[in-house]
């Protein structure tokens, strides 16, 4: 079937699994070969609907930020669809549709200082942001990356972060709440919470900040950023909600008054505060 005759917005594109790279614990990076321009050029912070035939679809954040490169998705095994994906092999096909949603406002970030804050699996979309930035490093000001996790063996993209930690044009802060298994790479902070890292960093009023992590993290991060003088209008949060369609029809991702899939998943804090039901930063 040619692309032109596709009329249903639910039609996925066939994507072949190019490589499977186990990361830490139940997290694995999947690289896909995709045909369409749209999927090859996803923007940081957008997401796709990943379909395992016979099982179901899951919304997954785009994890790769290099233009025209492979589509990469970092997936945590939590349930039916993700477990089925973990059983697949290189060369198998899945369905992908998207990309959906508004990602981080990269155009607004240009020329400014940027602070990226990730908690746990939240590093997946954040990675797409720093990859994007590093492609055109010169277009951005100071760049801080903050990455916190529960246990030290949860560290994702270990080799990549080892390299980042050595770069002079980035300030990278990594810490775990508990030491389990191997230590974090050298020069990391080792023990601590995301908020401690933010506090340590030189983030300030000039910074645009991008945040992604578990729901419980947001309130503390927002408080900490405000303490550092970051205005609300410069705080961008990527939210997770239950999603079925990704195109603003199924209703699952309604958050107060907006559809996370269409109005988000990245929201500016000023807008979020107007919505009831946003438990992450307003409770």
């Amino acid at each position: 079937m040619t692309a032109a005759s596709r009329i249903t917005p639910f039609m996925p594109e066939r994507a072949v699994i190019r490589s499977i790279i186990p990361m830490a614990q139940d997290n694995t990076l999947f690289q896909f070969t995709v045909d369409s321009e749209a999927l090859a050029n996803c923007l940081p912070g957008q997401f796709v609907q990943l379909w395992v035939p016979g099982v179901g679809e899951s919304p997954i954040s785009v994890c790769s930020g290099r233009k025209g490169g492979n589509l990469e998705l970092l997936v945590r095994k939590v349930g039916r669809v993700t477990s089925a994906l973990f059983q697949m092999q290189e060369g198998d096909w899945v369905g992908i549709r998207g990309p959906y949603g508004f990602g981080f406002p990269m155009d607004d970030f240009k020329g400014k200082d940027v602070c990226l804050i990730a908690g746990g699996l939240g590093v997946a979309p954040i990675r797409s942001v720093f990859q994007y930035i590093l492609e055109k490093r010169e277009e951005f000001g100071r760049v801080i990356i903050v990455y916190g996790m529960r246990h030290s063996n949860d560290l994702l993209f270990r080799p990549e972060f080892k390299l980042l930690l050595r770069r002079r044009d980035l300030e990278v802060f990594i810490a775990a709440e508990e030491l389990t298994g191997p230590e974090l790479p050298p020069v990391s902070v080792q023990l601590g919470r995301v908020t401690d890292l933010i506090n340590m960093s030189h983030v300030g009023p000039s910074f645009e900040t991008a945040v992604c992590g578990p729901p419980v993290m947001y309130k503390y991060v927002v408080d900490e950023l405000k303490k550092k003088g970051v205005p609300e209008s410069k705080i961008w949060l990527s939210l997770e909600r239950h999603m079925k369609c990704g195109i603003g029809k199924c209703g699952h991702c309604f958050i107060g008054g907006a559809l996370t899939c269409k109005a988000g998943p990245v929201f500016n804090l000023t807008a979020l505060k107007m919505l009831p039901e946003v438990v992450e930063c307003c409770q």
Partner: protein
Amino acid sequence: MAQSFVFSKADFDSFFRVLQSLGEVSAPIRVSDQSFAFKQINDPREIAWDALRTILPPKKFFYPPKETLLTYKDGQIEESVSDNKFQVIFGVHPCDLHGLGIMDTIFEAGPADTHYLQKRNHSLIVGLSCMPDKFCFCQSMGTSCATRGYDLFLTDLDDDFFLQVETPAGSAVLPQLPMLRPAEDADKERYKDYWLRREKAFTNGFAPDNLRATMDMEWNNSLWDDLGKRCLSCGNCTPVCPTCYCFDLVDIASLSDDEGSRVREWDSCQFVGFAQVAGDYNFRPSPVDRLKFWYRHKLHGFDDAFASRTCVGCGRCTVSCPAGIDDLVQVVKTLQGQKEGKE
């Protein structure tokens, strides 16, 4: 400008046959002592003229409770296309016409939902006037007069029907309707008289002006907790609502190796898993959270592209709630601080 005609009820049979020549005709029929449902009919005598609200609203014709969207076999994905049979939906009242209009907006918004639109575009909607009962409150929601969503509209003038034609699809049927005569001034008087009488016939409702503000202000009213305690989370309020559109997508695997389908099925925001995400984090864990959310969608409206409130005042949820907590009118009045009913 809409054209208007009149025909005698004695000619309704032939009018019906013309509709039938266009495609399958569905109309409200009686299914129990208290309930009606839109069903396909072959005989105009089956029509329940006294039906005000059917169990399910006419959205079911374009957005079926269960619908296959895709099938796949041996690596080939195929979209399911509707069979494009033409449907005539007869006897849709103003509230439901508004409901269809809202559904149209939602499914037309990009990317358009072709599954809905294909069926919608292969249909003719014939509206019908009605006299409100004690549950109707479309007047308060501003949906008591049909303004869109229909091709033809019939107003009951005792011995005659007053026929309004709204769309090109409606006009296209006209040549086949020899029983029509253009509406004369006297007919128009009778028509206006009918609708005036109807305006006065409402016994249920509230002052709508401050509704949005009230819903915002009363977000933490203790009334919600009282209602939440009684809520069964059975979800009956959502399938029956003309404007509820939430769905689930599920894969149906087949026993043979590489074959299956993707099906969408109506879902309800009242079910506990609706807003649950991985890690067992639930954004609306208790019945009261979910009930409040639904009330907000209906009476306040979301702040998204379809920013209007979505209740059309049909009263279906009120009559379909086994716990009796979906009495929207009563709830609004309580929130507004009104003590007395509208008398």
